[in-house]
């Protein structure tokens, strides 16, 4: 039980990552695949945050007296997540705009029916 309490963030984010990967691999609708990519991204961002987090930590700013350096969370992963979110949004926007164009060409979003390119 203590294992679960200690590692709940990691279990949660790897759960999200695996759910995202499952959706990308198993679903045939392009929109669902894009949702899977988004869930995967969220899982990765959560992992980054969880790595820098300590229980009951505060922002690393000496805003009021009595704050000690060892009670602060690591700010670097949060900066990384900010960048990763922006990149994720760009990929998602591009994917959705390509999905619209794909639907105009093929009249379907079912990836199993889109076989214009021979393998």
């Amino acid at each position, binding site marked *: 039980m203590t294992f679960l309490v200690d590692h709940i963030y990691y279990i949660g984010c790897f759960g999200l990552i695996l759910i*995202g990967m499952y959706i990308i691999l198993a679903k045939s609708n392009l929109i669902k695949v894009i949702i899977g*990519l988004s869930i995967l991204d969220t899982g990765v961002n959560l992992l980054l945050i969880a790595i820098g987090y300590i229980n009951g930590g505060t922002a690393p700013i000496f805003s009021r007296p009595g704050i000690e350096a060892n009670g602060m969370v690591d700010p670097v992963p949060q900066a*990384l997540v900010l960048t990763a979110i922006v990149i994720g949004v760009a990929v998602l926007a591009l*994917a959705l705009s390509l999905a619209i*164009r794909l639907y105009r060409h093929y009249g379907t979003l079912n990836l199993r029916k889109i076989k214009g390119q021979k393998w």
Partner: protein
Amino acid sequence: MVNPVLLIAVPLGLAFSIPLFGFISRRIEKYIPVAGMLFNLVLSIILVPKVLQSPIVISIGGFRPPFCINLVAGTVGVFLSVVIAAMGFLVSIYSLSYIKEGATEKYHMLFLLLLTGATGVVLTGDIFNLFVFYEILCISSYALVAYPGSREGIEAGVKYLIQGALGSSLVLIAIALIYGQFGTLNMADIARNISSIHSMNIFLPFVLLIGGLGIEAAIFPLNAWLPDAHSSAPSSISAILSGIAIKIGVYAIARMVFTVFGISDTFLFLVTLGLITLLVGELSAFKQQNIKRMLAYSSIGQIGLIVFALGIATPGGVAGGLFQILSHALSKGLLFLAVGYMIYRTGSMEISSLAGMGKRMPFTSLAFTVGAFSLVGLPPFIGFSSKFMVIKAAMAKGSAIFVVLAALVLFAAIIEGAYFFRVVQIIYFKKSDNALKREEAPPTAIIPIAILVTLIIVIGIYPNFLIGLLNSAGSEFLNRVQYIRGVLG
């Protein structure tokens, strides 16, 4: 003092100013990538003699290296940035008249961003910064593959995007795990501390990094997107994707394996993987009827050869791998540029429709032949010197297994010869039904093609002036202690 930051900052700034220039005049926007890449080419060549003495380490933000984002312009980085800038410059000249339809300012902007991302990856010394530049490269290449808006282009773009985005997520997970264990993102700092961690704990990030970066590098089981993407993109973009983008994936893998992790157990794995990629790529290329698809599969094969050469992990092998990167960039770039106007004239990508091209477009056909012979590895061209170097390094390894592997590499070269000679034969000797009117490509295409042909022949005849640079680059990869000391002081 020339600052390597400018190699990234100037093209990035120019890329985002292209829409602004478009407001002033629609004419000048297409000359901006030419200007940006010419600047990068000149600057990188100026940097070459300096980095041959010692690598230039630039700290951004005024902190000392482990605490800041740093750029490491070593010989590998500057060598690859010369290759990127040279190919970018030639292809941007080619694009001046080749790209006419659609949103041209977006094309030129994405093109410059792609090259900025590639330059950033090879120059950075920070693992997360590498990821960011890698994403700039990937996102602009997804958009450029889908740029023509055709049925095939959009489908290939979607495939590429899904696989590429999955790969980047794997890289980010690996970065998170590495940061969790080392508390640093600086590649030299990670490399210094990697031996203090139990090897089981770095196994997962290592596998995720190789898998994630391997998708962009199109190593064998991860290469499903490449033939579609490279054959549906406009030919100028295919030249950049084949010549530059996949090499960046290989560079990133090599940097991780050699410098950051320094695991010598994986070299034989890399050699095998490279060889499988080589054989699969060449065998698939052999049965293609579509010329651009054939060239795309041949790129997979060549990537396999580069990975094979890097996996030999002797100074000669790594130098041969880097030489092969240059040789493939020049030859495949030339082939795609030449084929671009052949397809434009015939309106078909089938190999059989190229019949009679030898009379219709004599210079372009000659250039295609030079590129094909160079890729196969015939003597006066650059491909011969680079393949010779790789085979020599494999034989110098001395063990029986490497002799067998080198024999398989030569076998792949025979397959390569078979399909390239077939195309050359169709171009020159097959009778065509159409009227044989001479219509050569426009001068903006002839100039870059002629420069590439000259480079292929000149470097092929006299490869020695590159040997010093290549050996120095090879030792940068193999000597991690020197790299760590160079960055952290």
